[in-house]
């Protein structure tokens, strides 16, 4: 039996798990592990500039490859810096394993230097976590961590290892350390009766619609979903994280649903009589007002995690299990169908909206983010590209105007909406897929949160292409302020550094583009450069994402793209359509109350805008 130190056991385990790259940052409590690292040259260590970056890189690596990403940090601040990245991975079901150092087992609970109760802090944002205080327990904890992270509904697992456990020795027996998890049930099987009920609903449907989520990517069932859609001629809509799971070029793919989804998709959801939800979780950004969500539809929910069923939307049939297995069993029961009338209805709705599509518009000298993103897609269509986005307006424009035909070609922080995610996640994705182009689409706000990771890209000599959509605003918050807070731009105008010089300061390339006619040359120059390139796309400042379902409003009550196109005017003086009663009452009440409290009236709203319905309580106070 080999006697090894706990630190060596960590690396042995990582090697046995097939890990080729880890993202980390050293520190006191994890030093023994870093010292042992030199004996394991097969595993490449990427030194990050902030531990949040390490978790996002592991996350990006996991999402691009489908494998488990690994991040390492020290105790205390090292571990707490990871929390945002862990929560991001939790919300988006991304398999990562985080290894953190902990103060010596005797010092636990004494408020020792750099001590934090890391298992306590991360408990609600991990799928599971471990505190290991003995070297003999390390192997089992790490094996179980990998198993839990990647099985069932994937998620982050943290292993907190005390310094003495890393230093002391123990027998290393890989076989004996096999997971023993009597209470862990990642796999479920729906009873046959449920399949029959699901098939009956689908076969009798007049207006069926598939809601395609990230679960399709996780289970690798793109072809199975397409086969089902083809068999019964069912249209498909994807969630944000489901983008890429169904090729954008597929005739069945209607586009994205939800808050900034396509209007015809949201209308179709409200009109559908059967919704087939595949590996998605009815997030509030997808459903809008739950009280009016898809009231005409019977719902079939195929989901691997039983806690998601009936959580937000009550369903009629739940098929709990791996999506690919469920579809394999379900498809033979589904009958061929045409649904010609249903398709015609959808196409009528789509025809109306497509007129407003910016892609058909001429270049008028202004640079709009949607144009930039659409042009990047056109210019990189023939290449194998992964796009990693941050959170905000640029993320929604990317989802709308970059057409993804392959699974895992869009990586974005969906559930948690983490600003600063894009650059580090892209670096992780590049390590997973060095042969692919990796583009970062990021706002000027989010980029500044983690731009220090440019140094990581430079030190590692890897190339990612960073397209900063720079509007000198926290754009999405500004849009909300414009729509719902009478244009009071509190704390959203924002300056940044000269991004070109910033890139150059990191010994990388920087480019600036503020004209649509320059986009092509800029993108080509970027692709030709061997280094990481940062492009500062200086776009219209006050541009908005359309359509939009206000938070908590009915899904089909959208603020629509203006008929007189926004893209042809300066963003600041445009008009947009606010449908009557688009805002939920509570919202208008709160707004009216806020106005009374502020002593301000409705001053800056354009005259043509329908005034928000004043509520009784607000009236009486005036």
């Amino acid at each position, binding site marked *: 039996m080999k006697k090894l130190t706990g630190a060596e056991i960590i690396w042995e385990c990582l090697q046995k798990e097939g890990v080729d790259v880890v993202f980390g940052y050293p520190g006191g409590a994890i030093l023994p592990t870093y010292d042992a690292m030199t004996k394991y040259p097969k595993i490449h260590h990427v030194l990050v500039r902030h531990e949040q970056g390490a978790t996002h890189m592991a996350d990006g690596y996991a999402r691009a490859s489908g494998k488990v990403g690994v991040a390492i940090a020290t105790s205390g601040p090292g571990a707490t810096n990871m929390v945002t990245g862990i929560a991001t991975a939790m919300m988006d079901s991304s398999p990562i394993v985080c290894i953190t150092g902990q103060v010596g087992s005797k010092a636990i609970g004494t408020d020792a230097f750099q001590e934090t109760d890391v*298992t*306590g802090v991360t*408990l*609600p944002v991990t*799928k*599971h976590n471990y*505190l290991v205080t003995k070297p003999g327990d390390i192997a089992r904890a790490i094996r179980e961590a990998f198993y*839990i992270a990647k099985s069932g509904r994937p998620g982050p697992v943290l292993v907190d290892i005390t310094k003495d456990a890393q230093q002391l020795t123990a027998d290393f027996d890989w076989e004996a350390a096999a997971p023993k*998890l*009597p*209470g*862990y*049930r990642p796999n*479920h099987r729906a009873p046959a009766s449920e399949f029959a009920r699901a098939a009956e609903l689908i076969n009798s449907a007049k207006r069926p619609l598939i809601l395609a989520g990230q679960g399709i990517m996780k289970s690798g069932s793109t072809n199975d979903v397409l086969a089902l859609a083809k068999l019964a001629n069912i249209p498909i809509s994807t969630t944000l994280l489901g983008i890429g799971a169904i090729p954008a070029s597929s005739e069945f793919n209607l586009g994205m649903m939800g808050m900034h989804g396509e209007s015809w998709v949201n209308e179709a959801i409200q009109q559908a009589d059967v919704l087939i939800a595949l590996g998605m979780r009815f997030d*509030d950004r997808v459903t809008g*007002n*739950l*009280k009016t969500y898809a009231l005409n539809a019977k719902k079939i929910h195929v989901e691997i*995690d*039983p*806690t998601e*069923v*009936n*959580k*937000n939307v*009550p*369903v*009629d*049939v*739940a098929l*709990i299990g791996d999506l690919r297995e469920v579809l394999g069993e379900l498809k033979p029961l589904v009958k061929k169908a045409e649904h010609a009338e249903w398709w015609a209805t959808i196409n009528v709705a789509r025809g109306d909206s497509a007129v407003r599509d910016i892609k058909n518009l001429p270049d008028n000298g202004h640079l709009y983010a949607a144009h930039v993103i659409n042009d990047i897609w056109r210019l990189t269509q023939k290449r194998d590209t992964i796009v990693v986005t941050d959170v905000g307006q640029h993320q929604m424009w990317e989802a709308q105007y970059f057409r993804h035909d392959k699974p895992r070609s869009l990586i974005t922080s969906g559930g948690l909406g983490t600003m600063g995610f894009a650059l580090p996640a892209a670096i992780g994705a590049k390590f997973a897929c060095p042969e692919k182009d990796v583009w970062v689409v990021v706002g000027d706000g989010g980029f500044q949160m983690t731009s220090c990771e440019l140094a990581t890209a430079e030190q590692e000599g890897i190339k990612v292409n960073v397209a900063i959509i720079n509007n000198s605003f926290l754009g999405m918050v500004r849009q909300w302020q414009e729509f719902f807070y009478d244009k009071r731009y509190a704390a959203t105008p924002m300056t940044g550094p000269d991004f070109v010089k910033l890139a150059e300061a990191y010994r990388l390339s920087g480019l600036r583009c503020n004209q649509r006619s320059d986009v092509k040359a800029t993108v080509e120059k970027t692709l030709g450069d061997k280094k990481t390139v940062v492009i500062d796309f200086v776009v219209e400042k006050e541009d908005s994402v359309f359509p939009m379902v206000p*938070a*908590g409003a009915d899904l089909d009550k959208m603020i629509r793209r203006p008929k007189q196109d926004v893209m042809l005017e300066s963003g600041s003086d445009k008009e947009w359509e606010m449908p009557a009663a688009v805002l*939920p*009452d*509570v*919202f208008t009440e709160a707004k009216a109350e806020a106005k009374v409290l502020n002593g301000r009236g409705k001053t800056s709203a354009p005259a043509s805008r329908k005034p928000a319905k004043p509520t009784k309580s607000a009236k009486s106070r005036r």
Partner: protein
Amino acid sequence: MAKHTLIAYVEDVPGVLNRVASLFRRRNFNIDSLTVGGTDQPGISRLTVVVDTTEAGARIVEANLYKLVNVLRVDDLTHKASLTRELGLVKVKVTPDTRSQVLQLVDVFRARVVDVDEKTITAEVTGTPDKIAKFELILRPYGIAEMVRTGAVSMARGHEPVSSAPPLVRTADGADQGHDTSGISMSV
């Protein structure tokens, strides 16, 4: 909303109670009572959780408990024939005049006197949570010096073993759509 009694068998490892308690807090469920103790199997503890929620809410609690890696088995006893017991210790103030009255009441509730001094009587009472609440109510006029309740423990009646089947996710029946998360004020 109604009281739901859930039984969970958990691995007896450090932090497991924290995981369960954290789950209830995170998912916004209120615990009425939570007890934990050993079982006949070494290394396995048994929890009894009473939670005030709807039927749909109880299903969500059950599924979430199952999702915890250290939870071995969950059983909802709410709609099964079951025994529920709780223990209470009540220290009542007495005077020479009231002592005999209190002793009589203790007798009526089939409680036991476990400690006596010149100013108090301490009684131990077991029974359903309702009975203990009643006992407290009856003694209150005399002045309760101190009181503690253990929280309910429950067990199914009869010889049928509690199911070890995977969680049954019942679909909505329309009548009970509780755990209503649709409130507008929650939207961000």
